[in-house]
């Protein structure tokens, strides 16, 4: 029971708003300006941020719920405050972490210390160390990588944050963007100066876990001209929170000729409503590459959007979604071509199993100015049984003739021939199917750093065994 000794209390002082059980009545249903003010005070917000939060709350109260997509009826929107106040309540005891998650850690081969850290149970061990090392190397290159809250109080960055914060995803965007604006907390700020090419990927999970934040985190990344960054968000181990709402926000500003790769392997625990908003705006000659794997959560709405605002800007989106039992994952991407000679490329795969629902949803908009633009979308879905569901809902809105827009989609199942072939070489049916599914997912795994690709493949293996979820 050596592991047990490493379990310690999380530092509650940082994010726990001190709303104890007995305060529940006071909070009532819905969020009030008072609650927001209290959050703001707790975080020692600058004045503009306090106002921003309050304005966002007004917008939140006025904005209707989405009228498309998976049902989020089970989400108690009227009592959304419950989710907010429980935000930091990652499990306090390793024993309370559900077995399926423990098993997943086990099978993924994640060290005990890190498991506990990921589950929000333990203090930070290896990851904290690694994080510090990363930070040293990064700092030497002139890159700023810090948490948004402290950056906001640093006079060097205060203005730049005020200038960019929720400008790309305004609180008016949708109800949960407004909620985010009101209650956001934690997250990363990355600033890459002109011409800096950062070779090592920055990994946000060190950050997130270091602070125990994660449900309403805000990520703001600014790349100046001709810089390069690979940012990796999350990891393939499940993050478990008791209360199941995640409404994070990611804003990426890609400067002229700059290139940003943003990779996510998301594996929220399966009680989570993941209503995340991610958006990038790309200047002339710049490039955004999204690599996205969605494995976790109960319900997801996730469509990273790329706004190609400068001539020759490019966007690539590579995604995989695996929906198992009890999951309804509505994922895809949005592309807006706003300037001449812009190009976009989307390649997605989705898998549905054991009653899971996966939906690929996308939009490609080519505006009048976007002459000479090209877009190519390809999506493929795999049904692993007859009780699951897989929908494909793409849309293209084209407003100029001088463009070349292609789209293709396929849906089907694993071919019996392929399974038979592999079985004839000695694989069991389960292994054969897992192998085929891994092959199906290789559009994403080959875009990931090796250790993540390995973890993702393990994850697929686990899902195929049906031992989790």
């Amino acid at each position, binding site marked *: 029971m050596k592991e047990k000794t490493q379990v310690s209390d999380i530092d509650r002082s940082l994010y726990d708003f001190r709303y104890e059980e007995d305060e529940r009545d006071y909070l009532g249903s819905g969020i009030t300006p008072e609650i927001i003010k209290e959050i703001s005070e707790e975080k020692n917000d600058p004045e503009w941020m306090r106002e921003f939060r309050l304005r966002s709350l007004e917008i939140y109260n006025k904005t209707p719920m989405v009228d498309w997509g998976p049902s989020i009826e089970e989400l108690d929107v009227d009592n959304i405050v419950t989710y907010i106040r429980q935000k930091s309540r990652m499990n306090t005891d390793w024993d309370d972490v559900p077995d399926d998650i423990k098993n997943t850690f086990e099978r993924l081969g994640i060290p005990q210390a890190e498991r506990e850290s990921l589950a929000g149970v333990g203090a930070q061990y290896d990851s904290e160390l690694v994080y510090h090392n990363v930070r040293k190397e990064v700092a030497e290159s002139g890159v700023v990588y810090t948490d948004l809250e402290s950056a906001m109080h640093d006079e060097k960055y205060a203005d730049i944050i005020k200038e960019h914060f929720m400008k790309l995803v305004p609180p008016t965007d949708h109800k949960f963007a407004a909620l985010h604006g009101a209650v956001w907390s934690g997250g990363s700020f990355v600033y890459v100066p002109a011409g800096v090419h950062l070779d090592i990927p920055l990994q946000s999970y060190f950050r997130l876990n270091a602070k125990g934040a994660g449900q309403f985190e805000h990520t703001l990344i600014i790349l100046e001209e001709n810089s390069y960054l690979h940012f990796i968000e999350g990891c393939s181990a499940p993050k478990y929170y008791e209360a199941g709402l995640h409404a994070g926000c990611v804003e990426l500003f890609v400067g002229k000729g700059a290139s940003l790769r943003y990779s996510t392997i998301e594996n929220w625990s399966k009680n989570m409503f993941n209503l995340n908003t991610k958006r990038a705006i790309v200047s002339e000659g710049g490039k955004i590459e999204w690599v996205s794997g969605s494995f976790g959560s109960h319900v997801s709405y996730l469509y990273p959007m790329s706004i190609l605002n400068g001539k020759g800007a490019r966007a690539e989106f590579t995604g995989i979604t695996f929906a198992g039992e009890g999951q309804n994952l509505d994922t895809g991407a949005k592309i807006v071509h706003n300037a001449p000679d812009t190009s976009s490329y989307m390649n997605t795969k989705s898998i549905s199993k054991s009653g899971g629902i996966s939906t690929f949803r996308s939009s490609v908009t080519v505006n009048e100015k976007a002459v000479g633009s090209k877009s190519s979308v390809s999506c493929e879905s795999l049904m692993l049984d*007859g009780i699951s569901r897989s929908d494909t809902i793409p849309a293209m809105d*084209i407003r100029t003739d001088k463009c070349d827009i292609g789209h293709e989609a396929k*849906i089907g199942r694993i071919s019996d021939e392929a399974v038979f072939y592999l079985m004839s070489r000695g694989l069991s049916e389960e292994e054969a199917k897992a192998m085929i599914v891994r092959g199906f997912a290789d559009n994403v795994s080959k875009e990931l750093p090796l250790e993540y690709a390995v973890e993702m493949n393990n994850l697929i293996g686990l899902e195929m065994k049906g031992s989790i979820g």
Partner: protein
Amino acid sequence: MTKLNKLPAPTYGWLGVNYAERELSDNKAELVSVSEGSLVKADITSDARYELSAQENKELTVIMYISDEDKRVDVSAKAESGSKLTVVQVFDKGARTAAQLTADIADSAELRLIQLYIGGADTVSEINPVLSGYSSSFKADIGYLLEGEDKLDINLIADHKGRKSISEINVSGVLADTSDKTFKGTIDFKNGASGAKGAEKEDVLLLSEKVRNKTVPLILCAEEDVEGSHGASIGRINEEHIFYMQSRGIPEDKIYELTARSKTDRIIKLIGDEETVSRINKTLGRSDDDE
């Protein structure tokens, strides 16, 4: 305003593709039933209501030439087992129409749909075949040629319920001037439609920088053993194509002319009926023997 052409699985509201809103009056036309004969032609210039039925193992072809403004054309069709029902609908220039075609396709029956929209001013057209029978099939070839301020909204939903049912949807068209087109095509595999196959394709040639094209191809699937696909290609003619044709001496404007024409020619060839074809050619300002 009435909401028509509802997308069976709504998506982002700001795209404006979830439905089409139009002023709609009641369809007061008397119901016309057609189930006898092999070829029936109808010249539709006002509200119309049809009930078509291809009887067991029989073949029936109905050609509807729809012209003149502001009308509703509602067709309810039934292809009984083993039958083949062919429905040809030509929407003439200026035919501001709210059209609806629903169909039930029984075991081994086929619904063959051929539609040509020549302009159409402001037309909303919904097509909803239900492939309820074993091995039932739906084959649609749809073409459009829009210019000026033409506006067209098509919502096609193929519901696969029967085992081994097959749908094949081919759409091609040309948009010029400030025309505005929305094509929503859904293949919906219901649970139980094992062995079903559905394929959908749209090919849009854009000829003016002021056009507006929306393409929304859905596949909904609740059955494992199916094969579904859709494809769309929108824009100008690609460079490789142009080079190939130019290398045979054909100048660029002629390449566009030929290609644009090929989109409607494809549909005209399928219609076959001489009288109808000649009427279409007249509308298009072409002579019949101008091959």
